[in-house]
């Protein structure tokens, strides 16, 4: 199987399992789901690595976006706690 396909299947499995488990637990915060999607992206990408050079370049950009989203959620939570 191609590395990128393995990554996508792994990521989809992790993301959909998260939704299943969190909905069973009655979690209602969208930010929790999104933060976990971001973390799972990094887990799946590490498990499926190494990638070829062009794949790696694109994946790095996607990782930056995921990191920004995750950081945004964390900052929002900190502001909520402090406020």
């Amino acid at each position: 199987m191609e590395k990128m396909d393995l990554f996508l299947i792994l990521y989809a499995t992790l993301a959909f399992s998260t939704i299943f488990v969190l909905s069973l637990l009655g979690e209602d915060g969208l930010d929790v789901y999104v933060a976990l999607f971001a973390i799972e992206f990094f887990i799946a990408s590490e498990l499926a690595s190494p990638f070829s050079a062009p794949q790696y370049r694109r994946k790095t950009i996607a990782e930056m976006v995921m990191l920004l989203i995750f950081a945004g959620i964390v900052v929002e939570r900190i502001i909520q706690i402090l406020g």
Partner: protein
Amino acid sequence: MDTNQEPRRALKRTDSRIAVGLLLIVVGAVLGIPSYMMGIVPMLALGLASSLIGIMVLYLPGSASVSTSVLTDSALPSLLNIEKLLQDLDLDERGIYIPVAGPGIAPRVFVPLALTPSTKRPPLGLAHSRRIFVTVGKNPEDRGILLDAPGSGILSDLERSLHLDFARVPLSDLGSELDSGFRALGIAKLTSLVHQDASVRIEMELTKLFDLEAKLMSLTPRLSEHVGTPIVSTLAAATSKATAKYVKIGSAVFDLPRKKVNVTLQILA
């Protein structure tokens, strides 16, 4: 026949990727928008995840697929030229891979005119020489030709995809690193690497480039035996970097039906 179908299969694969990606985005939007309006968070998350995966399927590329027949046709003439050069100069000694260090830097191959004390251990500085015909000693027979390893491009690709320098990889880890790298490039699987005394035996199963390797074995016997085909040369170059020693190709045996190659490398003390 296999090589003719390859571009068509790659095109079909790209089409199916686009279809799957778009389908996931549409399903995500159909699930997500009403869920957002009704405030059903798990369903909204499901829509979001579906769209996210769809975007990734479209954005992240599959491995670049260039037909191996095109690759073979483009690489063959230049390697045939080296074969002719080796024949014209009547070089019968095996090439010596000169160790180097640094990511993306591949060892060069020194093919001596005759084996003398000087040509057995060519100076390390030779790896950075830009000349083809070099003299490494005081005597007229201390000469040879200096070539870029046929596997230097593949070696650089391996290091780039693994984000490492083979010069920093211990020989005990070389097998697993090469296997990961070759799999990432989608050209081969390394089945075993055995280090015994001054020799390293490597067994590989090729998934791509087999046509090129097989053609080179028959059309360029001298190059294949003394310098190595691209895959064999990659293995010799990686071993030379990892051990920081001179390396020679002992033998390279191709198992045509099973697409396997057994390579024996000699590490020179």
